[in-house]
């Protein structure tokens, strides 16, 4: 999808929006991971701030509820020394009938430099980046079922820090693939980073149509699906899936697809267990596994701040370069010197 790459990159190939890993090449994804690695150290320092976004305004626009993602984005922006405005959209103008378009144009007029956007509609961040505010850096914090690129990339960071290279790895993603924006971006990122054995595990009701076209294999049986894998990524199962007839009951789901200590034996002995959170203990994962030695769940949260600092700083830098290039194109320096009087 060249159009997605074009939209996310400056003319010189720098990141200016981060909407999805789809369309970005391996080098760019590795640069994001390398930059995030350098920020992991910042979180361990006594003074946890760097001045990269000083004087810049970051607006968190969360059209959907979120606690974890919103707070890590806020923290990441503050550690980069940005001025941060977090808008509760439910009490803002959009609930008074103002369109998304008008809300964003107003915020743009306030000279915002970056929007961190979570929205319930797939393609919302793409729409904003392409149609509404091309000169404001857009970071997608989750759009519908489409993408959640910072979550997917923090998962890649977790895998790389604990497993090294992606090529030899087998990765199983288990659960509600259908509704998961994280799973789609994990697949794009894993494929681009070289992982060739990506398995999706779940019942057909939670498996998107023609998902094999993304270069993955599908498995209805949990035991064979996670057999010999290096990484098990469990997805959150929302309880309303039972009410809308995707599944008969939480009990049957846990029996068939819940990750238990007993079942984890099917994976490699040193396999790591991940979960984007928040976890449902006893529905998709057993507490003993979630809190066990193979669990990376809390590490993921810590890496999340570093990863978000990385993409925010990279996209802001790319956006500034783009603005300067455009300013120069609009006002080229004069070659004729005025004579001194």
């Amino acid at each position, binding site marked *: 999808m060249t159009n997605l790459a074009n939209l996310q990159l400056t003319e010189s190939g720098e990141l200016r929006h981060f909407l999805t890993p789809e369309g970005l090449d391996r080098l760019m994804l590795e640069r994001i991971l390398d930059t995030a690695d350098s920020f992991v150290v910042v979180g361990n320092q006594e003074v946890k701030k760097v001045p990269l976004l000083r004087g810049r305004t970051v607006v968190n626009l969360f059209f959907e509820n979120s606690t974890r993602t919103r707070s890590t984005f806020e923290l990441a922006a503050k550690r980069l020394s940005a001025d941060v405005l977090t808008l509760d959209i439910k009490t803002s103008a959009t609930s008074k009938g103002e369109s*998304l378009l008008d809300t964003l144009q107003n915020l743009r007029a306030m000279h915002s430099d970056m929007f961190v956007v979570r929205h319930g509609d797939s*393609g919302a961040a793409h*729409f904003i980046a392409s149609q509404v505010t091309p000169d404001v850096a857009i970071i997608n914090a989750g759009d519908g079922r489409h993408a959640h690129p910072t979550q997917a990339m923090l998962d890649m960071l977790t895998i790389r820090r604990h497993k090294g290279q992606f090529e030899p790895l087998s990765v199983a993603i288990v659960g509600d693939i259908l509704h998961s924006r994280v799973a789609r971006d994990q697949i794009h990122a894993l494929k681009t980073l070289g992982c060739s054995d990506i398995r999706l595990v779940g019942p057909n009701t939670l498996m998107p149509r*023609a998902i094999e076209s993304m270069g993955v294999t599908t498995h209805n049986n949990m035991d064979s699906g996670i057999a010999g894998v290096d990484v098990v990524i469990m997805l959150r199962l929302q309880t309303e899936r039972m009410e809308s007839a995707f599944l008969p009951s939480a009990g049957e789901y846990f029996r068939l697809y819940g990750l238990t200590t007993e079942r984890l034996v099917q994976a490699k002995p040193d396999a790591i267990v991940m979960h984007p959170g928040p976890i449902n203990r006893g529905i998709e994962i057993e507490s003993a596994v979630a809190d066990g030695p193979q669990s990376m769940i809390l590490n993921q949260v810590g890496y999340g701040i570093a990863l978000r600092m990385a993409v925010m700083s990279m996209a802001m830098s790319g956006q500034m370069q783009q603005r300067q290039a455009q300013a120069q194109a609009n006002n080229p320096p004069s070659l004729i010197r005025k004579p001194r009087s």
Partner: protein
Amino acid sequence: MSIIIRGARLIDPITQLDQVTDVHIKGHCIETIGDLTGINAATEIDAKGMILCPSFVDLHTCLRDLNQVQKGTIASETQAAASAGFTHLCPSPDTQPCSDAGSVISMIKSKVAAAGFCNLLPVAALTKDLKGTQLSNMESLSRAGCIGFSNAGYDISDNTVLLRCYEYAATFGLKVFVQAQDHQLGRGQMHAGPTATRMGLDGIPVIAETLSISRHLQFMQHTGVSGHFNQLTSAAGVALIRQAKAQGMNITADVGIAHLCFTDTAIEGYSSQYHVQPPLREESDRKALLAGIKDGTLDAICSAHQPHESAAKCAPFAATASGMATYDMLVPLIQGLVDSGDLTWTLAIQALSSNSTTIALRKTTMLTVGEDANLTLIDPSHLWTLNASSQLSHGTNQALNHQNLKARVRLTIKSGRISYSM
């Protein structure tokens, strides 16, 4: 009024006419066909290299107006229809207010007549306010000029009500038009396939169409109603129609021009201009639709014209309105299919004119002497650019906006009078 069109290629699939010659139109009729050297008329058109054929009849369109003037007016959209070669239009009953009463039909009719570009052959609502609970006054609406009855894109979930609709239509020999898409399975935004999966959009599976076709076929078979299916989208849907026709059922079907030309991959990058209902499907479906036109399984091509204002398409994909304004692009799109070898002009004219006239008017119109002069003159080699100044529809949802196009209607004649000329 006297018009002579000289040197056009005359195509009439019914009479199997395909000849380069002249046509003289006098009053509202075709006066002469043949060499008219030495004969003059008030209006003379040099039509060398152009195609002259019976005018088009649109079996499915939305004219907006009444309460949706921001999207288009009857004047603007009927003029756009005339510029696409249409003289007769069968608008869908999902107008605001709904086309379920004689007063609404007569209001639309009078506006169309006042505009003067096209004749109206309205399709009225099958149930009151399209709610699927009470029958509309079908017999009275038929007397008011409605040629058929449809519940548009709205569901009649109660099979008892649907059976009554068919039984009542059968009583008076009325035609039922069907937009075949199961309501529950049709709640998505695009075709359920690899593109929808990757883009995270809710998919509409092919079974949404086939389930609905099968359901309506059973009612048609049970009651003997003559049915017409609007806007087929899938290979499986075409196969069901082919099978039903082979069994001798009295049914017809059409396909929208967008479904003949575009597929779901056009939505890559969340392009809302390709957000249509029923959805664009895969290339194999598009090929099956073309094959359906070629072997006669699909009788007609309709515009499925749905103009929108720009704000309706300027939002995240799921929040945008579905529909495409097609009148300004229709003839260039057909020309594209002819150039790619997917269609011939003779087949296209049969689908846009001969068959659709038979379905809507229950009679044929021919390019023969003495017939009403309802004619379309197409310049298949005319190059032009679609943009705000060249388009006639008020709809800004033109999928090919700013693109260079080939072929354009040069003249549309309605009952001997020029309704559009370029």
